C-alpha cells in the first residue's frame, strides 16, 4: 500500500465521515463530488452513526494473501441510520452466532498490514454491541 493511498482515505476510515447532499439529503460514504441522486455538488460532512443493522454476511475461507492469518473470517454489510451501507469484517463473535438483522457496532481496528515493515492499514470492523 502506498502511504498516500492510506492517508487520503483516513477521513472515512478513521472518522467515518460521510457526505450529505445539501439539496436532496442523500448520504454517501465515502464522500463524492456530485450527488448520485440529484446531481447537486455541495455537501455537508456528517459522521455515520456507530450502530448498524447486518443485512447479509459470509464467512470467507479462501481470502487474499494478506488475510490468510485470519481465515476463516466473517464479512458483512451493515445498513446505518443515515441510509449508507458499509462492508467490513464481523469480529469478536463466533460465526455460528452471527445472524442477519442483528445490530452491530462499528469500531476502529487494524484491518491489514503490508508485510513486516509495511504500512498498517487501519479502518473499521463490526463488533457485537457491548
Amino acid at each position, binding site marked *: 500500500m502506498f502511504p498516500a493511498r492510506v492517508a487520503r482515505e483516513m477521513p472515512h476510515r478513521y472518522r467515518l465521515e460521510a457526505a450529505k447532499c445539501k439539496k436532496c439529503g442523500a448520504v454517501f460514504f465515502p464522500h463524492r463530488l456530485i450527488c448520485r441522486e440529484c446531481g447537486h455538488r455541495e455537501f455537508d460532512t456528517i459522521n455515520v452513526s456507530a450502530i448498524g443493522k447486518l443485512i447479509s*454476511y*459470509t464467512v*470467507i*475461507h*479462501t481470502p487474499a494473501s494478506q488475510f490468510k492469518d485470519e481465515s476463516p473470517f466473517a464479512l458483512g454489510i451493515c445498513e446505518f441510520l443515515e441510509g449508507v*451501507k*458499509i*462492508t467490513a469484517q464481523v469480529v469478536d463473535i463466533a460465526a455460528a452466532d452471527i445472524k442477519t438483522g442483528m445490530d452491530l457496532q462499528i469500531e476502529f481496528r487494524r484491518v491489514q498490514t503490508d508485510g513486516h515493515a509495511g504500512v498498517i492499514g487501519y479502518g473499521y470492523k463490526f463488533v457485537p454491541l457491548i
Partner: protein
Amino acid sequence: MRDVAIVGVGMQKWGELWEKSFRDLFVEAALNAISDTKVPKIDHMYIGCMTGGLFVGQEHVGSIMADYLGQKHLAATRVESACASGGAALRCGFIEVASGMSDIVLVGGVEKMTDVSGDGATYALATAADQEYEVFHGATFPGLYALMARAYMERYGATRDQLSAVAVKNHDNGLNNPNAQYQMKLTVQQVNESVMVADPLRILDCSPITDGAAALILCPLSRAKEFSDKPPIKIIGCGMATDSIALHDRRDLTSLDAVRISAEQALKMAGKKIGDINVTEVHDCFTIAEIIVSEALGMFPAGKGALACVNGETRVEGKFPINASGGLKSKGHPVGATGVAQAIEIVHQLRGEAGKRQVKNAKIGMTQNMGGSGGSSVVHIMEVA
C-alpha cells in the same frame, strides 16, 4: 445505422493450457474465426481482456495481438469492463460496423489466468470490486456473491439444493460441449459437500480459473454472403448498463439493476419481448448469479429463479434454455473471453450446429455478460438473418 452480422466464429478447448501463451491463445482463436469465413482482410480489431497486466504482466494488448495475428498496422485496441470485457468489445465492434466506420471487424477476447497462483488470481479478479471499500476489508469475489446468495436465500427461502441445481444443469450441458473445460457430470450432493469457499458458496458453486480465447468476425449484413455460406447471424439488439461498483451501494442485494436495464435496452432495440428469446447464455460466474440474472432478464419473477431451474425450465428442452454451452461453470471463465464465447454459442445455436446441446428451432438468442458483482452488464440479441 447499418445492419450488422456475425459471419465467423472461433475458439479452442478451454482449460489449464500451460503450453499455450497469452498471445498464442488469442491468435489461435482469431485464426479459427477467420478460417470460418472468406474475409480477405480485417479493418479493425477489438479485444476484450480484463487484466493481462496482472495475469501475465502484459498490457498494450491491441499491438501485440495485431502483430502476432499477422495484421501489420491493423487498428486494434483492448476493451476492459472486468468480466464483461468480451461483451463490451462486441458492443464496440457492433458500433464500429453499424456506424460505417469499418466493414470487417474482428472481436476477440482472451485471458491467461493459470500463470499465477490461486492467490494471484484472487487478487487480480478482486480488482473488479471496490478496492478501498470492499477489497481492503477482505472481500473476494466469491465473498461478494455469497453476500448476495445469503440475502437471496433468507428473503425467498431458496435452499442449498436449489443453488446446486444450477451447477448440475450447467455441467450436464457442458458434457455435450467439446470446448468445455470441465466435461464432468455433477450431482447435487457433490456440490453440497464440496469445499466451502465463502459461506454459503462452495467450490462447485464457482466458475473455474481458465485459460482461453474466443473470436468472431463482424461485417455489414449486406455483405455477409460474400464472406460466408453459413446463415449470417444478425445482431438485432445491444444494451449496456452500469451500477455501483460496490455491492453495498446497490438498491437491493438480491437484484441486479444493470442486468435488467441492459436487457430492457437490448429488447427494445430488437423489438422483442423476453418470451421471444429461444436460447440464452448468461453470466453464471456463481450459481446464485444465474438465478438472479434469470430474474433480472424478466424470465421469472423475483424469488422464483431458483425454483425455475430445479423445475427444468432452464434446461436445453425447457421454456427458457440457459447456458446450453455449459455456461461459465462448466465451459470455463477466462474473464476477458467469456462475453465473446457466449456470442459464439448463440451463433452455433442459431446456425443449428450445436450438436447434442442444440436447442430445437432456435431462431432468436441472447447473451448476458456481467462485470464484477453486477457493476456492468452487456446484453446482445441475435437472430438468423
